[in-house]
């Protein structure tokens, strides 16, 4: 009992509360989007999602017992391991919605690319922390790029554009916070812009059409533009107060595709309106604000870099996902952390938050 109360004192309570609230909100909308007449109250999506939450929770609590610096030592080993797993996806992976992202391990399937994100952040924190005095050298930057590029390429091949993009977003913010020279940063950005037309040719036709539809939403209202149009209609039609839980017509009448995964926020917007959507946004804001505070609060370079990487990952997911549902971003398959249906994403987000808590608990105190 004392142990628990001591633990609770040291833990970042707003972060934990916001996380749990978002998960519960996610669960209720998962129910709203997948509930069908005649099926029991506990349909399989809810049960599975709760099961994944428990798994994520067990992992998170277990990991809290270990000082995060211990992960640093393991990071390169994990990096090799995940690259091996990512390679194996091409041979034993399941194809869902045209992408080979999942690996079947008995009762569950999981997405190695989700875990790759965590491992990559640890490796980068380790690498950049160790090379912090050589951060102005080009060699260091190229090294960081190589570390990210190998898994990013494998994930892009699956194909999973969204996760690959997350990798680079994380890389940029970690390089930036490490104190990389501004001219190097400018060089990287202009190089990226220069490479864009080349990368265009590597995109799949559906990815190209998504980008074209983003530039002109009325291009193909029944084809590639359908989802984004229906998503905007769903969110917009929620207006201030929403149509009420389980009363969204875009949701119930099937107008919205992928509404329990990538487009679940559209249902939140439709059924709870602007107020509900802003509340969800506020909870994410709490998570991110607390996480950045953790980054500030520690003097340990490794811990700070790790925190920045994890915050970037979560914030990037939230921003791209919500921006996509209201047409501010092109459609890339990125789930909404803690709310979208999907075990791997949920477990990884919980572990990320657990590591953040870990950084705070184990911060060196002078």
């Amino acid at each position, binding site marked *: 009992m004392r142990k628990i109360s001591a633990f609770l004192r040291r833990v970042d309570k707003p972060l934990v509360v916001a996380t749990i609230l978002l998960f519960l909100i996610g669960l209720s909308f998962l129910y709203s989007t997948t509930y069908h007449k005649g099926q029991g109250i506990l349909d399989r999506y809810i049960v599975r999602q709760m099961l994944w939450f428990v798994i994520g929770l067990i992992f998170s609590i277990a990991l809290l017992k270990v000082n995060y610096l211990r992960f640093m030592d393991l990071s390169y080993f994990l990096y090799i391991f995940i690259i091996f797993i990512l390679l194996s996806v091409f041979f034993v992976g399941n194809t869902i919605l045209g992408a080979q992202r999942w690996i079947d391990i008995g009762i569950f399937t999981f997405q190695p690319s989700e875990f790759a994100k965590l491992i990559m952040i640890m490796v980068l924190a380790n690498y950049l922390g160790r090379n912090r005095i050589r951060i102005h050298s080009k060699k260091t930057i190229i090294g960081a790029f190589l570390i990210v590029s190998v898994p990013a390429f494998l994930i892009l091949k699956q194909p999973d554009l969204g996760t690959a993009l997350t990798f680079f977003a994380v890389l940029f913010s970690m390089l930036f916070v490490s104190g990389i020279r501004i001219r190097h940063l400018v060089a990287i950005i202009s190089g990226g812009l220069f490479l864009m037309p080349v990368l265009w040719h590597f995109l799949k036709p559906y990815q190209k059409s998504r980008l074209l539809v983003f530039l002109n939403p009325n291009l193909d209202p029944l084809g590639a533009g359908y989802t984004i149009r229906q998503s905007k209609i769903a969110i*917009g039609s*929620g*207006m201030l107060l929403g149509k009420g839980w389980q009363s969204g017509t*875009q949701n119930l009448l099937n107008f919205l595709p992928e509404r329990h995964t990538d487009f679940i926020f559209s249902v939140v*917007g439709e059924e709870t309106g*602007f107020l509900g959507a802003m509340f969800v946004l506020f909870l*994410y804001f709490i998570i991110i604000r607390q996480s950045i505070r953790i980054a500030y609060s520690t003097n340990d370079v490794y811990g700070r870099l790790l925190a920045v990487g994890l915050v970037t990952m979560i*914030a990037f997911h939230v921003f791209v996902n919500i921006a996509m549902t*209201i047409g501010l971003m092109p459609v890339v398959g990125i789930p909404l952390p803690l709310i979208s249906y999907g075990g791997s994403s949920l477990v990884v987000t919980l572990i990320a938050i657990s590591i953040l808590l870990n950084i705070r608990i184990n911060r060196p105190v002078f």
Partner: protein
Amino acid sequence: MSKRLRIFKNLIGGSFLALALGLSYTQIIKGPEYFRLSEKNRTRLIPIIAPRGTIYDRNGEEIASNKLIFDIVIIPQELRDKAEVFSRLSGLIGTGKDEIERIFKNNYYAPFAPVTIRENVDKSIAFQIEENKLDIPGVFILTRAERYYNHPESTCHIIGYLGEINRKELEQFKEYGYKIKDLIGRTGIEKLFDAYLRGDDGGMQLEVDNRGRLVSVLGQKEPLKGNDITLTIDARLQDSIFDEMGSSRGACVVMDVTSGEVIALVSQPSFNPGIFLNSGNRGKITQLLKSSRRPFLNRAITGLYQPASVFKIVVAIAALESKKVSPNTSVTCSGSYKKGNLDFDCWKKEGHGTLNLRSAIANSCNVYFYRLGGILGVDLIARYATEFGFGRSTGIKLYGEAKGLVPTRMWKLLTKGDRWYEGETLSFAVGHSYLLATPIQLARFISGVANEGILIRPQIVKSTDEKEKSSVSFERLSISKETLKIVKEAMLDVVENEHGTGHNASVVGLEIAGKTGTTQQLVGESHAWFCGFAPFKSPRYAVVVFLEHGGSGGAMASIIAANIFKKMQELKLL
């Protein structure tokens, strides 16, 4: 490092602000617009066509009503095994499986919208489909009301027909609730009273899902049948006259001389207005439209003809009223009449001998009327003709009535740029020259004579749902009783005297007065007229028979008139 961290923090804060702004724009500013779009997404409207009002004859017999039609339809979302259902359906209705497949594909609109496979099937087939319902999921029998004409051929020119609304009409009538694909009256009562007859369509508002499948019925508005109309027509008489005329071309009008009610109005040849209801009849319709027999022409009100000797009654009245001639003025007919260096023939080559006015009418002597024409002059005759309604439309509530023409000196100067020749007056005096009239005008004229100079407007609509439309509209002409008495007695001779030209029209037990007319044609037989009224002592009905190329007025036209009078006796109308 902490400076960079602050920039990083601000960047993330900025992106969240962008999201908040994006959400307020989408949900608050554009919210109502997206809400409308989401409502449009989920609702569909299926119209339920309202039946048109019934058109009755004067005895309550249905002339145009609505018939229950059975359509075989497939509701796509209920269709389980397409191939299986199509082949079973094919066995039941005899249409080929591939043909069913083709019709289904071509007419598919949405999963909830019924696709009509075959229209208007026999009741027995409809029952068979209902019995086998369980074997053919997705196939249904839909019932709807279709216009049905109980006396299609005989009444077509009065009733008119229906056609799909065209673009121009749609623009014009949209605000009155007309919709695309609506049926609209094309001629006759159907056209003139279209707004009154048409019902108020109902509809079902459905909630559908993303694939257009029915989820629930949100609301239903029952269709409202249109208003009914009762005509003055007696369908029994109408049918019998129609049959009587057979294949001859022409028109017959029977009119109540005191009320103006038209109890029969037949035009031949005719057509079946029902053919316009089925799009499969396009070929037949084109053929009818092109036919040189012109079946769509309502000869009773639109056909313009020379009234010939019937017009002699007008000339006689003009002569007596203007006191230029007395009833006893006699003229000797030698078979022809000389005017200048032209010879004008009487129809009786050997001549009628000496005649007074009454016997001149009874024998329809041309020479007598040539003399009268010479005495009266064109404009005086024209004045009386106009008074009796020639050259003026009668105002009957039917579509496309013609006005006719009464020539005058001035008219000729203005339209032909030429002066009036005296020889033309002679021709005019026996109902030829430029004179043109419709059978309905003659019916009004004869009623006026029978009715002591009261010119009454013919009526075809007896009452509508709203009110009895028995407001009689008439003009009282200043024609003396004596004049009319002389003329009427002469007309009595025409029929009742065994030497009268219209003796063929006589009927046992009925005193009939009348006048025949024969219009020479350049090609073919002459047109024939019989115009009369009965009973003589207290006139009740005027009868006009006109036959295109019907020979002499004393022959077929008079015989048909006799049969009409007989039928009216039989129907206790006389």
